[in-house]
């Protein structure tokens, strides 16, 4: 019996190596084949795959790809399913198994994700779109002077407020200059019928921690220097005056918030239904607000931390081209991105269908949606705050958000929160 089992195992093992070898040689043949045909200009087109994390633009992106495929016959662009928050997991598995078969175009954030996938990115300096990037918005995608990504869109976040409700409560949005003004306004707004809380935060880790804590870090004098000191263990979060002040401010506003209990959907739905006067969100909420068919007027309000009068505007998402894809595929990927970002036919999709605020010159921005126009207005007036949360330690956003949840649940004081955040920060840095 034992012998038999042994023989079976052996034969299977041999079989599996056979299959593996077979697959490999087959693959090589295929590749040679496709290279052959494309060089002759007949037969198969080079297939360019795209994967990205914005679920809300997936349908429109498929339409854009279809239109691009009609304009030329060299390349075939195929958007893969939107990966949403799982994008990093998907990319990880794809690139670790076979980089040459991974998506041709993919998106990652700047900062730690950029560093992680840098070995797989092709330089994009020679592209038409590269020369049209708005001043200063490409620095986060540069390494050794070369450009490795094209910014996807300009985005802004702050407090989205219900203009009609502010009128009803007798609050003038322009008068909110300090944090105390915000607290006073919140008290007034909560007198309005139907309002549960003045301000709502969403519970996802980015909305609960990363975006709200962008304010103190971005508004301090030397953000990168401070973060470098924290990373080196020379400075603790609980000793930074801006953070102390921010947490003290949170203490004041806490009772006027939903304690960040809602999901993103519920938060925006509550705003649309008039339960919240303000939500801490970005212009990406436009799609949802359109779905809820909001009747009142709304706009952006700065978070008045230390008298701040700007909203946080930046871009952290970049299109990347896979270095390990075939040359045809890379050329096709660049052609598609250039078409999308510089050709009027492609630009139409970016502004009108994706609802993106373009980061490139030469776009027609007259027909943008209300929130995008607000972001544009703040940006053109120079009232912007930088996005710095990509400098927070990588992969710890959920841990940070857990501590903030504890704070809202009353298990941590403001000071305790800073200490807890410090611990998470240091463990994340050590790893």
């Amino acid at each position, binding site marked *: 019996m034992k012998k038999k089992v042994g023989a079976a195992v052996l034969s299977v093992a041999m079989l*599996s190596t056979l299959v593996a070898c077979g697959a490999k040689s087959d693959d090589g043949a295929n590749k040679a084949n496709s290279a052959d045909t494309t060089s002759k200009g007949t037969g198969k087109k080079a297939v360019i795959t795209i994967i990205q994390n914005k679920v809300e633009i997936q349908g429109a992106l498929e339409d854009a790809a279809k239109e691009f495929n009609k304009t030329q016959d060299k390349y075939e662009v195929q958007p893969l399913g939107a990966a949403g928050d799982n994008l990093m997991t998907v990319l990880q598995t794809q690139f*670790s198994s076979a980089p040459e078969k991974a998506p041709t175009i993919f998106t990652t954030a700047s900062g730690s994700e950029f560093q992680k996938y840098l070995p797989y990115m092709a330089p994009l300096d020679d592209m038409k779109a590269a020369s049209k990037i708005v001043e200063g918005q490409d620095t986060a995608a540069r390494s050794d002077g070369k450009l490795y990504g094209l910014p996807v869109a300009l985005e802004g976040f702050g407090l989205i407020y219900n203009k009609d409700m502010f009128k009803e409560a007798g609050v003038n949005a322009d008068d909110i200059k300090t944090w105390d003004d915000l607290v006073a306004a919140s008290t007034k707004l909560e007198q309005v019928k139907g309002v549960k809380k003045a301000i709502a935060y969403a519970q996802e880790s980015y909305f609960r921690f990363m975006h709200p804590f962008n304010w103190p870090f971005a508004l301090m004098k030397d953000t990168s220097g401070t973060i470098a000191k924290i990373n080196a263990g020379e400075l603790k979060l609980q000793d930074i005056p801006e953070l102390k002040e921010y947490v003290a401010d949170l203490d004041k506003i806490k009772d006027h918030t939903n304690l960040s209990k809602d999901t993103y959907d519920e938060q925006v739905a509550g705003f649309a239904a008039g339960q919240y006067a303000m939500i801490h969100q970005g212009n990406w909420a436009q799609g949802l607000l359109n779905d809820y068919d909001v009747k009142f007027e709304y706009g952006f309000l700065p978070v008045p931390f230390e008298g701040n009068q700007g909203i946080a505007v930046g871009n952290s998402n970049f299109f990347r081209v896979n270095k390990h894809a075939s040359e045809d595929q890379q050329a096709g990927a660049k052609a598609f991105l250039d078409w999308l970002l510089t050709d009027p036919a492609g630009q139409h999709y970016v502004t009108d269908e994706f609802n993106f605020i373009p980061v490139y010159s030469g776009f027609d921005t007259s027909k943008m949606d209300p929130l995008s126009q607000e972001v544009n207005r703040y940006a053109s007036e120079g009232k912007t705050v930088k996005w710095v949360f990509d400098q927070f330690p*990588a992969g710890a956003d*959920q841990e940070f958000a857990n501590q903030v949840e*504890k704070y809202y649940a009353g298990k941590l004081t403001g000071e305790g929160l800073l200490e807890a955040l410090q611990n998470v920060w240091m463990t*994340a840095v050590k790893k």
Partner: protein
Amino acid sequence: MKKSVKRNLIAAAFIVPSLFIFINVVIIPFVMGIVYSFTDWDGFQFAGSKFVGFQNYVQVFQDSDFLTSFGLTFKYAVCMIILVNVIGLSLAMLVTSKIKSRNLLRSIYFLPNLIGGLILGFIWKFVFTKFFVQVGEVLGNSSIFFNWLDDPTASFWALVFVGTWQMAGYVMIIYIAAIQGVSDEVLEAADMDGAGGWMRFRKIMFPLIMPAFTISLFLTLSNAFKQYDTNISLTNGGPYGTTELVAMNIFKTAFSMNQYSLAQAKAIIFFLVILVVTVTQVVISKKREVEQ
């Protein structure tokens, strides 16, 4: 001689395909996993990784979050084993008794098991966060009807509750089969000798359905340890990371903290623990089985 060759060929035809799949999707990745756990592999190409000995394993035991999740998983497994089997057996007794709607009840109790754990989690999440709050408001009683997923202790019991609701029907089926296999003669003989209901269950029924216990205990034990889908969809580790079971901790270590070799080391330790626990359980309950 010829006959036996033919028989062997037939046997091989049945064994080889499944063995082929088993080796490729279980054995090979498993061996690779053991290798990875001794290196500083970063999740991309294995070439270039260094051998680091037991460093990852040492780090596992310094990770307090992992140890907490392990403790929680043990607690979860104990609660699940007791509740699932007690409820499953009671249901089995109920539907093998002479009540009228027994066939209908069998399907009803088994139904939750047909829903995937992920979807089940989302359904119950709605019940715990929305329905409970509404009921609480209507009744003015918020000591039971509050948002269970907001409180660490209540969230844990929510996990146990949903897990039990899903698994109990499944072990019920196993117990039904065992109970129906007990011959009427033995039970009748016990009646003749004057054994009461409890005595009959304790001394006759219980030892005779012991094989079913072996299977059910094993199933609930290993399922409870490996729980992931309900965990992620119902609580997602919350509130503030207090309901993170081991499987989820390992997944997070790999995919959000990007520490693949550490996660692999955790997974190996996890495997060893499950192995020891389940083998012990099977050996103990096997000993108690009797021939009818």
